[in-house]
């Protein structure tokens, strides 16, 4: 489904990604973890070319991501993305946030798009908030709306870039619940997160990154119970000690 080969990305003198390979099978949930600055967000953003890699290839469903332009837009339409800061369109209602892309990109009739949107909002538990502006919602509700907005395009895969890092602690659970349901339904997912509990319970595979490289990858039980590298052991000791 997603195939990454030899990805390199530099920001000025800093190398954010160094020769990264990654394969995500259809229906697989891959959770990317690692310390801050390890390149996991950059990797996630390269997967739909919001960040342009300096070298390497990304293939989605066998098709290589093109340079800017219409072809890239078409491929992006098939890959949903959820951001740390929600990024809901502030000047549109929640419902309009969900219908914008389906009507403008897919050419869906407005009433059909609105029916889909209301159903999705119900599915993520905010059906009554459809006509509010994003700023009138709590952080957890905004993030669930953002997930619904991505799902409204009926994507083949979903990318989550630290979806719970900007949330108050009591709202993390409601967002993780929606993501867990999505995983159970068989969605292909790449999740960058610091939520170790989610990684352990929902991931099919954990990818551990440090200093722009994939250091270790394995099943959650293997990775959390018996990490193979010192870097991973060191990281886990710090995040799991309390």
């Amino acid at each position: 489904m997603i195939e990454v080969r030899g990805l390199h990305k530099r920001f000025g003198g800093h190398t954010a990604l160094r020769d990264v390979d990654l394969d995500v099978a259809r229906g697989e949930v891959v959770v990317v973890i690692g310390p801050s600055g390890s390149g996991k967000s950059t990797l996630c953003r390269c997967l739909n070319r919001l960040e342009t890699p300096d070298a390497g290839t990304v293939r989605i469903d066998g098709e290589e991501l093109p340079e800017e332009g219409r072809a890239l837009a078409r491929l992006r339409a098939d890959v949903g993305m959820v951001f740390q800061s929600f990024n809901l369109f502030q000047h549109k209602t929640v419902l309009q946030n969900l219908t914008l892309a389906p009507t403008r990109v897919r050419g869906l009739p407005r009433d059909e798009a609105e029916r889909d949107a209301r159903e999705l909002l119900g599915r993520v538990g905010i059906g009554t908030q459809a006509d509010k502006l994003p700023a009138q919602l709590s952080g957890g509700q905004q993030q669930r709306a953002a997930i619904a907005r991505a799902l409204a395009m009926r994507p083949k895969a979903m990318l989550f870039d630290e979806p719970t890092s900007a949330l108050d602690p009591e709202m993390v659970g409601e967002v993780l619940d929606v993501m867990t349901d999505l995983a159970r339904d068989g969605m292909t997912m790449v999740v960058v997160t610091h939520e170790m509990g989610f990684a352990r319970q929902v991931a099919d595979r954990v990818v551990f990154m440090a200093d722009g490289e994939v250091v270790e990858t394995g099943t959650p039980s293997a990775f959390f119970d018996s990490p193979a590298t010192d870097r991973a052991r060191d990281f886990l000791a710090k995040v799991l000690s309390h």
Partner: protein
Amino acid sequence: MNVITDHLSEFGHGLLLTAELTLLSLAGALVAGTVVASMRVSPVRVLRAAGMAYVEVLQNVPLLVWLVLAVFGLPEIGLMTGLFTTSVVVISLYQGAYTAEAVRSGINAVPAGQGEAARALGLTFTQSLRLVVLPQGLRTVVQPLGNIAIMTLMNTAMAAAVGVVELTAAANRVNLAEATPIWIFVTAGLAYMALSGLFGLVTGALERKWAILR
């Protein structure tokens, strides 16, 4: 005071023409400014360069020079447009350069994540600009655009120099007959102030109406 009441119709016609010049030029400036600002933030280098060249060239030559150049230059290349039309086009393009800079600062004030979210959904750059970034950017620069509107109103007086009988030219004509410049130009000045006061009120109302909840 008789000089004013005796020439009410001249003042009236002048004021009407000033209002027409201003509104048409403003509409033109808004269109030109939005297009040029969009070019200046586009991923295409040629468009960015062209947008920047437009702003630099238009802003760095006085409006009066542009007006005179257009009035005498356009017939040379076979374009016979009326003085009013020529003035509207020139003022639109000139004010468009200032509008472009205001709109561009509005675009830059929209968080980058808004455009990223739009593109991640499959919208093209143009779509994300038109549907997501510009509507938010324009709302944040209502106040500077209001200032540009007032500046446009004041600049329509330049059209007097190329034969458009707007408010300033009308006042000048009345003065040639009556030779009481103080009263006549104080009256014209008050009319300009009334119009710009109106713009101020409209700007304030629009700003409150379009404020974005963040």
